[in-house]
């Protein structure tokens, strides 16, 4: 063949013209469902991966990247989005990008997917990736092998106790090799994760006052406080909108959840006079 591109037009026209022949060629059974063409460009809005790390420099032929997604509870609806982000990163970074799913909490779940499979019409497309169940590595955290992950110990246990928190604290405070600011950051994270399970009183028993003072200085806690403010404001706005307009569409809830405190405040003033969500530019 002289020009591979040049034949594209004919093949596309042929396939558009006789899709049924193509389906027969591939032995596809549509079970009587109608077929219609949907030649659409793949043009997705931006998505954010949870974390991405490059391994090796730009010119390193052995370079690759780690794409990390973590989940508290396995949600199979996320799988296709993980695949999309992983595939997008592979193009974007122009190097192999490995997806690693980190399942954080066992709970009552039994399956923690390591693949996304589509079977249709007798065909199959399969995407397989690596997955880690954090609780299976709890001992490595407790023994100090993975001391930096101590803030997650509370997730590894079905019924975490104050002793679990104490173990976290000791691992962070006594393990050698951490810089002071790293210890402060890890403590802040430990408190952040633990507050979902314990009362403030319980947290104060374990994480003492000097540590709390230390925590306030960390850049991470400042960031966290901004987030907390935004989250608080979002909750208020959602409540306000619900009481004014009843059940809110999912899109409105998502929109509000992506905003900051200032946005919420400016919207709050307008909710009063608005007759509909559309008046607020939310529909």
């Amino acid at each position, binding site marked *: 063949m002289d020009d591979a591109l040049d034949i594209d037009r*004919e093949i596309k026209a042929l*396939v558009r013209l006789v899709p049924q*022949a193509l389906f027969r060629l591939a032995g596809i059974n549509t079970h009587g469902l109608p077929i219609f063409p949907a030649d659409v460009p793949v043009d997705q809005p931006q998505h954010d991966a949870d974390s991405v790390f*490059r391994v090796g420099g730009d010119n390193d032929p052995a370079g690759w990247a780690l794409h990390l997604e973590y989940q508290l509870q396995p949600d199979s609806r996320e799988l296709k989005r993980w695949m*999309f982000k*992983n595939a997008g990163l592979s193009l974007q970074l122009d190097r192999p990008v490995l997806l690693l799913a980190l399942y954080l909490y066992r709970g009552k779940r039994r399956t923690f997917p390591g693949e996304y499979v589509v079977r249709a019409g007798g065909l199959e*497309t399969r995407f397989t990736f690596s997955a880690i169940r954090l609780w299976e590595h709890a001992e490595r955290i407790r023994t100090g092998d993975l001391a930096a992950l101590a803030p997650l110990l509370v997730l590894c246990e079905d019924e975490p106790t104050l002793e679990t928190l104490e173990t976290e604290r000791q691992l962070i405070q006594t393990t050698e090799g951490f810089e002071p600011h790293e210890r402060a950051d890890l403590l802040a*994270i430990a408190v952040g994760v633990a507050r*979902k399970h314990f009362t403030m009183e319980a947290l104060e028993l374990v994480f003492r006052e000097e540590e709390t003072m230390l925590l306030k200085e960390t850049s991470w806690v400042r960031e966290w406080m901004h987030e907390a403010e935004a989250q608080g404001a979002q909750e208020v706005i959602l409540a306000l909108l619900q009481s004014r307009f009843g059940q809110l569409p999912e899109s409105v809830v998502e929109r509000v959840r992506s905003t900051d405190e200032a946005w919420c405040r400016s919207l709050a003033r307008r909710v009063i006079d608005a007759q509909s969500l559309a008046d607020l530019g939310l529909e």
Partner: protein
Amino acid sequence: MGDPRSIDAEIKALVRIAPDAILRLAGIDVPPGHVVPADVQVSPAKHDADNVFCVGADADPARWALYLEYQLHPTRRELARWFYKTAGLTVQLQRPTVLLVLYLKRGRNRRFPAEYTAVGGPLRNHFVFESIHLWEHADRIRSGELRELAPLLVLCEDNPTQETLALERDLLLSSTDLPRSERADLLAIAVGVARRYFTQEVLKAVFREDDAMLLKDTSWVQEWMQEARTEGRTEGRTEGWTEGRTEGRTEGWTEGRTEGETHAARLLLLDILDAKFGVLPESVVHRVQEADETWCRGMARRVVRADFLAELGLE
């Protein structure tokens, strides 16, 4: 557990602070300093899939989509793009999407990939898809079972001959159960594919004059011409070829192509003049139909500022 969303910030911060621990957790052994955080935003450029078919209506819970890519020569660097497009379509169409790759020609290639594998440290991702080797189905085409795919028969053979073309033509013309317009379209496609392998003389010997007349009316060729005009493209191969044939000309493909370009340019200019000045006098139409492509382009630029045809020297 509380709200999963609310733990996100903590986990992200932890991973940022202690990437080495996460790597060790996964059994990845990387020297310190070799790991740097990268941008987490995924926003690749727009990509076009070759063909996509939706099976089942949007509301049907059994709905799915077939995404088709075809390749003359297997190219490994396409694999990551196919992976991306499959994933993108799955999210975009909101239906499970299966990738099927159609390898069109065996040639000297031995490997026709059906998976994309990424390897990093001890980790391995696989993306496994379906593929078809067209040449393995040549007999199904020849026997008529897949006669609609006859235009591709020429690709199934290592050294296609005039007989291959004749068989393609016979398969298509004898398929009287197919609508006439569809047969004509398939014939046009057969000529389009075959012209990569055969001289014009051979094509003329196989696809006769009456076929050419049929071709001129095909929706596919019409669409092709329309596309060339709309997009201002100056390709027009088929136009040139069809005109060349019906007018009994003997110019080669190159001349046919120029002819096609001029034809498209004239039609486009007539469209512009018509839109600007309404119904055009016969003399103007005649003048444009005599013009070459350069003249048409120059005139198109002047039309914008002109209020009357006379300003363009056309009346």
